[in-house]
């Protein structure tokens, strides 16, 4: 059985007929070719698959694509605009907020939502806001630096 799904991905409309059991992360990766969203655990714990669905950070491995019908989805590939990095992306680059980079897209998307809710978070608030995203490389300190950098330098860039 397949059913149609219509959604907006990184600003572009997309319509496709899919199996209802297809996870949103697999729809993004396999149907749309947006492989920046990663799969780390398939249980909604690690957060490598975090995307924004109607502006909210969602773990796309625990959502069916059909549940996103009619929604606007933003992935890591849609974050930079006109060739300019988003402030959070820039922060991760400036502060060495990534090593292997596998958790990074999800971490960045979670941080984008965090800053949209709190433009000037403390270190503790950043750590708390990222508790749904696991990183095994960095020890998190540089990630917190990166989000603070984005908060300080990129207010104008935040969307």
């Amino acid at each position, binding site marked *: 059985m397949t059913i149609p799904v219509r959604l907006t991905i990184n600003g572009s409309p997309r319509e496709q007929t899919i*199996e209802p*059991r*297809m996870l949103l992360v*697999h729809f993004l*990766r396999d149907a749309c*070719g*947006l*492989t*920046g*969203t*990663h*799969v*780390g*655990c*398939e*249980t909604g*714990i*690690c957060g*490598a698959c975090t995307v924004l669905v109607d502006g909210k950070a969602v773990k796309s491995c625990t959502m069916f694509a059909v549940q996103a019908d009619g929604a606007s989805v933003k*992935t*890591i*590939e849609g*974050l*930079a605009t006109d060739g300019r*990095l988003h402030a959070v*992306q820039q922060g*991760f*680059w*400036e502060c*060495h907020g*990534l*090593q*292997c*980079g*596998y*958790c*990074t*897209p999800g971490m*960045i998307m979670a941080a984008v939502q965090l800053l949209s809710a709190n433009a000037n978070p403390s*270190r*503790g608030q*950043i*750590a*708390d806001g*990222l*508790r749904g*995203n*696991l*990183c*095994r*490389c*960095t*020890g*998190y*300190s*540089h*990630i*917190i630096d990166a989000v603070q950098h984005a908060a300080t330098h990129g207010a104008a860039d935040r969307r």
Partner: protein
Amino acid sequence: MADRTTGNYVGRSMKRVEDPRLIKGIGTYTDDLRLPGLLHAAILRSPHAHARIVHIDTKAARALAGVVAVLTGADVNEQCGAVPCAAAIPDLKAPRHTVLAGDRVYFVGHAVAVVVATDPYVARDAVDVIDVDYDPLPVVVNPEDAMKAGTPLTHPDLGTNIAYTTTMAGGDIDDAFRRADRVIKQRLIHQRLTPMPIEPRAVVASHHAGEGTLTIWTSTQVPHLLRTLLPGMIAIAENKLRIVAPEVGGGFGAKLNVYAEEALCGHLAMRLGAPVKWVESRRENAASTIHGRDQIGDYEVAVKNDGTILGLKARTIADLGAYNQLLTPAIPTLTGLVLTGCYRIPAIKMDIVGVYTNKMATDAYRGAGRPEATYLIERLMDIVARELGIDRIELRMKHFPAPTEFPFATASGLSYDSGNYQGALAKARQLANWDALMVDRAAARKAGRLFGVGVSTYVEICALGPSKAMPAGGWEWGCVRIEISGKVTAITGATPHGQGQETSFAQIVGDRLGVSFDDIVVLHGDTNVAHYGRDTYGSRATVLGGTALVMCIDKIVAKAKTLAAHLLEAPVDRIEFANGRFSAKGKERQLGWGELAGEAYIAKNLPAGFEPGLEASSFFEPQNFTFPFGTHIAAVEVDRDTGQVSIKKYVAVDDCGPQINPLLVEGQVQGGIAHSIGQALFEQTVYDENGQLLTGEFMDYAIPRAVDIPEYILGSTVTPSPSNPLGIKGVGEAGTIGATPAIANAVIDALEPLGVRHLDMPLTPERVWRAIQGRA
């Protein structure tokens, strides 16, 4: 060889060239590869720790639309060779490690059958309908029980659960214990850990029938070791096999291995005539990718009443799991090598017993042997200090070799290259404000709060290693080419997977050649590009790979000088090279790399006997390991009511020699400390009495989150290594080695007023709370 370059780039905290693609989500990890006609493999794994396979019915699986093949051990084990173990352990009793289970399964997660289908969902559907009739067998879980007579056998055909016994010894241990005023004993346990890189393993294999070549993309730390070892498993010659490690999402030792699935995918691609992809689930990663540590040790320290340590005896039981992976039985021997830590301890003896149990194999997890040794010696230093009533810092200082005593020979036969342990300790104490911490502790204790301070002074072995000390080649390879355009391509065999050598190697090359950082590209990870290499593990890549590039550059500069001499019409010994320019005294004209490269490749005006081109490759064979060191200090508070430990202050002073890129060094140290926080406080791989894995997901296996991490206070000292021209030592595992005992010592120190002498890790709230209840 003290010709260390400082220049425009080396020593600077430069942003990484790797990052733009990774922060935009356009890097390519193995699972991101899309090939025409790609098939998807899924693996059925054993739910039993030990069972006989009575029958496998694959009919329903084969009948599903989209299923291309369903294969069991009977179908592939004849065609595929055994999974290799490279550890050179004399008299090792080892079971044959087939790619799929034969007539028995030996651990939960043991691969039983593989499905190949046109769609990954269909492949998983098919796995679910394979019907296996298992006859459960007695299970061996506890390694100490496994050694007793009459216990069930993990591998009945071996006749024993003991894989090997070996003794590492140096100095006169009997004399040490004869002369001792006291012998202090302690059992110390290193729990089993799961490395848990956030990217699970993934493999794509594609066979090119016309050329007879096979390409395997795999999430590995060691593409070159795979190219060497896979031809022993599948029907492909080494020179027809290309291994590519694309972006690799973390390794920590878990991807320093040759796995059955890598051979299996290669075999399937050739057998089915189509590319095959297999992506590990997290549950598979927890059950079927190597685990780490899992050593039980009984220790005896021979001491004089004045604190002098005369000798150290250890009896270690290493739980190997059911099979030997690449280095499984060798890991405990690394522990033996650095057992004396950074102390003058004249005699050691370590008896190691490797034991098979019905669990996943243990192998190299970040630090591999050294975190074990460091934890042991650092816990023992605290225990000895306390028993003898000596200050723990004084006891450590008393046994440090002086900086002038290096190279320092250890009882285990190592030669520590350089060190200033006193300097790192002094700096850490200063950064931690040690005296104030002692005042805080006294005040807290007076108020009935459980506040503790822990210290660990460590030394580790890096830059693995001299070939004579390695199973198969410890050198590293590099190639540098000045392109005709004057751009520079540097190729390294030391395959990074997140450490940032595309950046740090460009810094080294940029300074040495005097070219712009932006004109340099560093290539790695594809054996068709980086022809030889020994890859990344044991904090070796920058030291060995970086030095191989320096050797290439020395050759190129020498060659370019002969060309410059010809073009400038000056004797070659008059040619000066500085800042990327070649000049001769008394000549106005200077030549840059662009001009020289143009001449070298166009090749119409070359000196006699000059080979065209400006390229050189080199193998660097180190004469010794390097020995980074440092001091970590942790201050913790334990909640008396809940047993919860919170880290109040964390100071790390690490000496990895001169730093190529201090920002990347900081990242390595911070990440390493986080692994230690995990081991010290949360992490433990748990099998129940039936051999069922209880920590099969991130839900049950607690790696640290952002909220679990203190603000790190980091410092460094710089003691160059004499073993390489850059003077560098390596830093990939330092955090994990130094931090675990600092945290554990701090927690035990906090519990000291209750009379707690020792607690094994992880120091979870429950374990700590029970200790408080038992003694309060």
